């Protein structure tokens, strides 16, 4: 009894050290940049280098802090921004749903495949990740361009070409193909753990395949569905590359707006405010949902 107690401070220190590493990582690569962006979002644009004012001034023993909330007010006043937010969330949510509908049968099929074939099938899912994201998107352009592969084939068959690039369809195709593995993998992880005897029990108690799926497989894979959806939805909302490459100029997505503010308008404060607002929009509801789920478990 006394030996472990004597060892306890050391053990506690070890545990603290282990916890410290990710904390330090988060601090350096998330918290500090976040603070910088937050600061910039409260400054005013200036023709200077960097292109914004300081938010505090020290003169004659007086510390003056100037917080400019004008950038946030601007976001609310100009419909451009909330239209872009809503459109991004809508597109990301739709793309996530499409991803889920395609990925679920894939994950289920892999989980039900013979154990020795599973690594190969998983490899096929992950394989696209081995090529650069950008390359995959350019490949999609090659497929969907007016004189691209699909239209060439259609032309050869004597059919009218289809306009695909610069449409919503192209953006959805980009998000779905780009993020598919992030949906398949967590789904597979939960489905693979699912005890076969639970399904057999459901069948034995009178549930046919559909009922057994709806009452046993689906509810028990909810954690995988939640994880996969978050992994696709969150980056998809702020996605810039896909709408920029595949989407049309009239598509308002927040990632593109952000880019325009930063690099075309060089209005860093407004751009930072856009970023902070997006984080608040996304992070708060997700934290709330996570808490609600956590309580249930």
């Amino acid at each position: 009894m006394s030996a472990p107690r004597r060892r306890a401070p050391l053990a506690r220190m070890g545990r603290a050290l282990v916890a410290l590493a990710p904390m330090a990582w988060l601090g350096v690569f998330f918290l500090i940049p976040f603070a910088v962006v937050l600061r910039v979002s409260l400054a005013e644009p200036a023709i200077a280098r960097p292109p914004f004012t300081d938010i505090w001034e020290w003169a004659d023993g007086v510390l003056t802090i100037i917080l400019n909330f004008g950038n946030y007010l601007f976001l609310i006043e100009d419909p451009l921004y909330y239209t872009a937010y809503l459109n991004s969330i809508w597109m990301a949510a739709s793309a996530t749903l499409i991803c889920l509908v395609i990925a679920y049968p894939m994950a289920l099929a892999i989980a039900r495949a013979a154990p020795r074939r599973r690594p190969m099938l998983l490899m096929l899912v992950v394989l696209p990740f081995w090529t650069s994201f950008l390359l995959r998107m350019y490949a999609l352009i090659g497929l969907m361009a007016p004189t691209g592969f699909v239209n060439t084939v259609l032309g050869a068959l004597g059919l009218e070409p289809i306009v695909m690039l610069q449409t919503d369809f192209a953006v959805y195709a980009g998000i779905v193909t780009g993020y598919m593995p992030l949906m398949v993998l967590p789904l597979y992880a939960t489905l693979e753990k699912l005890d076969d005897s639970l399904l057999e029990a459901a069948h034995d108690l009178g549930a046919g395949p559909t009922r057994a799926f709806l009452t046993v497989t689906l509810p028990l894979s909810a954690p995988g569905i939640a994880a996969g959806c978050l992994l696709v939805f969150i980056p998809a909302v702020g996605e810039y590359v896909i709408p920029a490459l595949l989407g049309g100029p009239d598509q308002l997505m927040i990632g593109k707006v952000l880019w325009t503010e930063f690099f075309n308008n060089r209005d860093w404060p407004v751009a930072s405010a856009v970023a902070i607002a997006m984080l608040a929009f996304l992070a708060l509801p997700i934290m709330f949902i996570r808490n609600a789920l956590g309580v249930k478990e």
Partner: protein
Amino acid sequence: MSQTAAAPAAAAAGRDRADGRPFIRISGVTKTFSGFVAVNDLTLEVREGEIFCLLGGSGSGKSTLLRMLAGFETPDRGRIEIDGQDMTGVPPWARPVNMMFQSYALFPHMSVARNVEYGLRQDGVPRAERAERVARMLELVKLTPFADRRPAQLSGGQRQRVALARALVKRPKALLLDEPLSALDKKLREETQFELLDIQEKLGTTFIVVTHDQEEAMTLGDRIGVMDAGELIQVDAPRDLYEYPRNRFIAEFVGSVNIFEGRVVEDEADHVLLGDTDLGAEIFIHHGLSCQMGQTLWVAVRPEKMRLTAARPDDARNAAQGVIEDIAYLGGLTHYRVRLDGGKTVRVTRANVERRHADGLTWNDRAWISWPPEAGVALTS
């Protein structure tokens, strides 16, 4: 002995009805898994209301047979009938039997009551009736206070009873139990055995129990079918199985036994004499046998039917001398291991009816072992 004490009514009822019609009829069923024959041309009839135990080691095909009854596996050949209805091509969800899984397979995301209710929901039983049947079933398995708990919040024994309630609530024509007690510790297992018998007696449902534990099979079963390598070796009541094993495999599989080997030297109508035995003396079989001179025969004697004496027994047949090598005192019983002069080790069990055995036999004493002729079972294979 315990089974007759615990469920005489059910057993008797089962046997009475039995002679009329077999309730579950398995005929010529074969099942092969990629070349491995799990069940080989097996034929078996189970009577209505009885507890039938399928006893066998791992890989004996007993679980495969049970899974074929439930509909999870399809026989390659042969036919399974339940209550006169051919089960070929009937999926698990349409069969009139329910199964209690070895792992219990309780739905972790549902409460105890919802687990039990599940089968009734699938059948579209109206809500009021569902609630009533679930409540009655929970009462039967003494789980009413736990209705709202999740399976993870229950002990092993409670989970086992939820699984039982869930499988019984649909009033199946037969309940299939896959190693029903193997996940419980020894003490709980004994209590649960008798609870199972109680419940079976109340409901009169036909039970088919798969187990590798012969004690469990003896306690539960009205009849036991011993399986090995996909075949039924012997089907009998527990007592018959123990007292009249058909061959050496059964004798050794069910209980412990001493098996002596010898060759027929005298073959008369009313007795057979074995010579050249590993007992070191002639063995007398008190009844006639169809055998040939010189044929190898075996005699199986249960340890508790052996006698251990300091002096040579008066009836000098089936006796040999040896040295007591080991004594295990268990309170009610004492196990002895005696090494015969011929080298064979023999197990003898004595009931401790007196506080101390008068002969005071102890380690390294020379002693005689013997058995009355009617205690032995002659085996030809």
